[in-house]
């Protein structure tokens, strides 16, 4: 008997900002939607995030950043995933970003960006529609 595959998501905060309220609320919403959420805490380097994501075999990484370094940190996570042959792990981002950055991040390969205007329902639904546990 195969138990139903569970979606596993890592919620991570790269960089130096200490504002994790948003990340925690997202983690909670994901849990309530039936996903398994691995939360790694504050001040993570992209290297640490990718290593943890591989060990935890997650389907998706949700990056949260409010400190302005997203233009470097988010694509760097993608780059390391590629180096490790783990580019099948989807990466999304959340935070406050200027419009032009959102376009650039998506172009770099971040699958979706959520901003303060996104509702929790929307964020959860996006996962349900786009992330299929392997």
């Amino acid at each position, binding site marked *: 008997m195969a*138990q139903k595959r569970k979606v596993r998501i890592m919620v991570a905060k790269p960089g130096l900002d200490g504002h994790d309220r948003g990340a925690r609320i997202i983690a909670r919403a994901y849990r309530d939607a039936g996903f*398994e959420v691995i939360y790694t805490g504050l001040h993570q380097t992209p290297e640490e995030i990718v*290593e943890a994501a*591989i060990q935890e075999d997650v389907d998706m990484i949700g990056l949260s950043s409010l400190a302005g370094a997203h233009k470097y940190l988010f694509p760097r996570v993608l780059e390391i995933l590629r180096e490790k042959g783990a580019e099948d792990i989807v990466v999304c981002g959340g935070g406050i970003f200027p419009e032009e950055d959102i376009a650039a991040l998506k172009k770099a390969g971040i699958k979706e960006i959520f901003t303060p205007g996104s509702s929790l329902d929307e964020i959860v639904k996006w996962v349900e529609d786009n992330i299929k546990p392997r």
Partner: protein
Amino acid sequence: MKSTAEKVVAGDIRAVARLIRDIDDGMPEIREVLKEIYPYTGKAYVIGITGAPGAGKSTLVDRMITHLRKEGKTVGVLAVDPTSPFSGGAILGDRIRMQRHSMDEGVFIRSLATRGHFGGLTQSTRGAIDVLDAMGKDFILVETVGVGQDEVEVVKSAHTTIIVVVPGMGDDVQAIKAGILEAGDIFLINKADREGAEKTAGDLRLMIDMDQEKYRKGAWRPPILKAQAVADKGVAELVEEIHNHGRYLFETSDDIKLGKKRVRVREELTDMVEKRILEEVINNITKTAEFDRAVDSIVSGDTDPYTACEELVLPALGLSE
């Protein structure tokens, strides 16, 4: 092209991570892989760490990793957190305390949710222990809240079981005596700078010493240690006691050792048989049109659940005439 088992034995992180996922998800394919890796298991030393939420287990594990790494040992960690019985989801946050080790190639950390299906935790944790063992980890630390049958089973299969308590939770000592006290090889009072550490130590000593088994000649008498894991105080002593306990285990006579192994193997095999039977039988009953019809009839009042259950189960087990 290497097989999954070959990759695991070679220490391929991705393969290990995925195999543990497949074990957790109960994929039938894993049975063949587990068979293949079994000959490579049995070398790791397994440590169970259990205690109430907030006792500081994850922080303690983090410090233990550091000490074991200093000895040149490789470490695997399985951190178990509860699944929400309402949504089926889980927030696995033990890793936060251990993230400093994530770039260390000698350390593999995996969070597991209890999920809770037919003793599923025991099965999947044992499977995951085998995987980490086969990949060559010297020490495997399994951290659980230690509540409920499943989690007790998990810590029981460890070589050394550490029970973590904090001072000032008098009733907590009461709570752990139900079933898990007997499983403790080492007791650790964490946050020992808090008021009441001495009293907790005294209470524990009393309770442990009531266990007559511990008075057998040459039996292991569980030490009670004090620590402040967050300040790395008392952790070196804990690791030393773990090694002592390990030496005790391996120096006891072969008769006792084999006897113990036989008991453990018997328990594990019984669990495995139980789980397999449940797997094979339950789906044949609950995933059928008859089952759905039975539900409808109970809801509409045409039958009662007792009759319906009998009508479903007996024929499936070949017990009806």
